[in-house]
C-alpha cells in the first residue's frame, strides 16, 4: 500500500502527519516504511531520528567529449533540446546542471566522440526507528533537479510495506513523481485563505492522477469553515482535524513526535478512514 501526504502550500504540516502516522502504525505492529520525497528540504529525520544503516549516492549521466576525436561539427549542441552543450573555439562545453541525461548527444555524434560519465547529485539514506523503516533523499546544494533522486526512491517502495510518502510542496513534476500510483492521498491544509488556495491546486493535481484522497485540517480553529465550504461543494471528505495547540507547536519546534494519547486517536482515525476508502475501492473492482 502507498499513502502520499501532500499539500500544495509549504509549512501546513505534511511532515507532522507523515512522520507521526508512520510511527503510530509501526508501534501498532504494522510493517511500515516512511519515505521523505521532499529532497530539497527533507525534515522527516529530525522527528524520527533513525539509526542510519545505508547510504547510496544518486548519480546521473552526463556527456564527456573526447577532444581528440571531436570534429566540432556542432550536431550535439544543435540537437540538444536543453541547451546543455555549446561549441566554442576552445572545444565543446558541457553545462552539466541543465543536462537531462537523455543520451541524445552521444546517439547523434557522427564520430562517437561522446561517452557518458556519472555525476553525483545527491544521496539516499536508509535507517530504522525501532521497527519503522525510514528513508530519505537529499539533493546536493546547488543542484537544480531532484527528479532522478525521486526515481531512485520510488524503487524502494515495496508492496509488503505500508509506504508513507512525505511529498514536496507545490504542484510541479516533483509532486507528480511522488504521488502517482498512490492508493490514497492525504491533503494537509490549514484554515487560511492561503491554505485554501493551495489546497485547490493540490486537489487538481491529485484528481488528474486519479488517486482517492481526503483532507486533514491542521491548526484547526474557528476558521475551519474556509476549508469546509470548499470541501462540501467539491464533495471532498475531511478525514481529520488536528487542533491549533500550543503543546503541538512546542513539540514540533523542538523536533519531537506527538506521542500523547489524544494524538494516537487522531492518527488511528486517519488510518481507519484510509482503510475504509481503499476497501471500498477494492470492492468496487470485484
Amino acid at each position: 500500500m502507498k499513502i502520499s501526504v501532500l499539500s500544495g502550500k509549504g509549512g501546513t504540516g505534511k511532515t507532522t502527519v507523515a512522520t507521526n502516522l508512520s510511527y503510530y502504525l509501526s508501534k501498532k505492529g504494522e510493517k511500515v516504511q516512511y519515505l521523505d520525497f521532499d529532497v530539497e528540504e527533507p525534515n522527516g529525520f529530525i522527528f524520527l531520528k533513525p539509526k542510519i544503516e545505508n547510504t547510496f549516492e544518486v548519480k546521473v549521466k552526463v556527456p564527456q567529449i573526447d577532444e581528440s576525436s571531436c570534429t566540432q561539427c556542432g550536431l550535439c549542441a544543435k540537437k540538444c533540446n536543453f541547451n546543455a552543450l555549446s561549441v566554442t573555439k576552445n572545444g565543446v562545453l558541457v553545462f552539466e546542471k541543465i543536462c537531462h541525461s537523455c543520451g541524445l548527444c552521444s546517439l547523434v555524434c557522427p564520430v562517437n566522440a561522446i561517452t557518458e560519465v556519472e555525476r553525483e547529485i545527491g544521496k539516499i539514506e536508509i535507517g530504522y526507528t525501532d521497527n519503522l523503516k525510514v528513508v530519505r533523499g537529499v539533493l546536493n546544494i546547488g543542484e537544480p533537479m531532484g527528479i532522478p533522486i525521486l526515481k531512485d526512491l520510488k524503487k524502494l517502495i515495496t508492496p509488503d510495506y505500508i509506504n508513507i510518502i512525505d511529498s514536496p510542496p507545490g504542484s510541479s513534476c516533483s509532486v507528480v513523481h511522488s504521488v502517482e500510483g498512490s492508493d490514497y492521498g492525504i491533503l494537509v491544509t490549514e484554515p487560511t485563505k492561503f491554505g485554501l488556495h493551495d489546497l485547490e491546486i493540490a486537489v487538481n493535481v491529485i484528481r488528474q492522477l486519479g488517486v482517492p484522497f481526503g483532507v486533514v485540517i491542521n491548526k484547526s480553529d474557528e476558521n475551519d469553515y474556509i476549508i469546509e465550504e470548499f470541501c462540501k461543494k467539491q464533495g471532498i471528505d475531511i478525514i481529520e482535524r488536528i487542533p491549533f495547540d500550543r503543546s503541538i507547536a512546542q513539540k514540533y519546534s523542538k523536533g519531537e513526535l506527538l506521542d500523547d494519547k489524544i494524538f494516537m486517536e487522531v492518527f488511528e482515525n486517519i488510518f481507519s478512514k484510509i482503510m475504509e476508502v481503499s476497501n471500498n475501492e477494492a470492492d468496487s473492482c470485484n
Partner: protein
Amino acid sequence: MKQIVVISGKGGTGKTTLTSSFAYLAKNRDIADCDVEAPNLNLILDNTPMKRELYIGGKIAYIDKEKCIECGKCKSVCRFDAVKDNFQINDIKCEGCGACVEVCPNEAIKLIDDETGDVIISSIEGGKFSYAQLRIGADGAGKVVTKVRQSLMEDENKPELIIIDGSPGIGCVVISSLTGCNMAVVVTEPTQSGLEDLMRVLNLVDYFRMKAYVVVNKFDINLEKTKEIEDFCSKNNFEVVGKIPFDPYVNKAIKESKPVVQFDESIAGREIKRIWNIINEKIKEV
C-alpha cells in the same frame, strides 16, 4: 534597477507576509510572485490583470498513429519511460529530449509545444505585479520563474526595484528566483526544521555568492531555537536584521487580504516596517 528575493528554505515561514508588506512600504517598485507552484501574493495585493500570456516552456513528443509501425525503437532509446505500451506518449514522463524523434525510422514522431503555464501581468498601486498559473505537473517551473521576472523588465516603465516572492526549497525554482538578484532576505521560524532548512538555503545563497539577510518570524514561540538561529548566523557571518513576534494580526491581515503593515496596532507590522527600513538602506549600498 535592483532586485531583492525573499526565500525561506522551509515552506510556510512567512515569505508572502513579508513580501506583501515590503510591496506596500517600498517606492518605485514592481513585484514578482515566483512561488509559481503555489502562488498566494495575488490574494493580498489589490491588482488588476492587464495581460495574460501562454508560456511554452519546452517540448513534448507526439506519435502519429498513422505512421507508427510499432517497431519499438523509440521505447528502447527513451530514458524516461515515456513511451507507453500502446505507442502513445506519457505527457507527464516525457521531458522533450527528442531522442525518439531521432531514431524513428518512419518519421512518425515529432516534438510539439508543451504548455507550461500562463504568465499574468497586473497593475498595482504605483507599479506592476507579475505572477504565473502553472499547468499541473509541469516540467520547467524554473523557466516560468525566469519568464515572470523578465515580463517586468520588458516593459518600457522599468522600475527602480523588483521585489520577488520566492518558493520553498533549494531546487530549480529557487535557483531561477535568485540568480541575478542583488540581495536575498531569508525568512525562517524558530523550529528545528526551520533551522536546518535555513542552513541549506544559506548554503545555496553562498554558492551563488549572494548577500543574504535573515529574519526570524514568530521568534517568541521558541526563544531557545531563536537563539540557536542567531548563533548559527553570527558564526557564519549572516546578519539577522529582524525578529517578528507572533501576532494574531498576521492571520487577520490574510483574512482581510491586506498586508499586515496596514494595521498600525500590529506588533508584527511594526517590526516589519523596521526591517524594511534596514533592507531599504542596504539595497542602496549594493
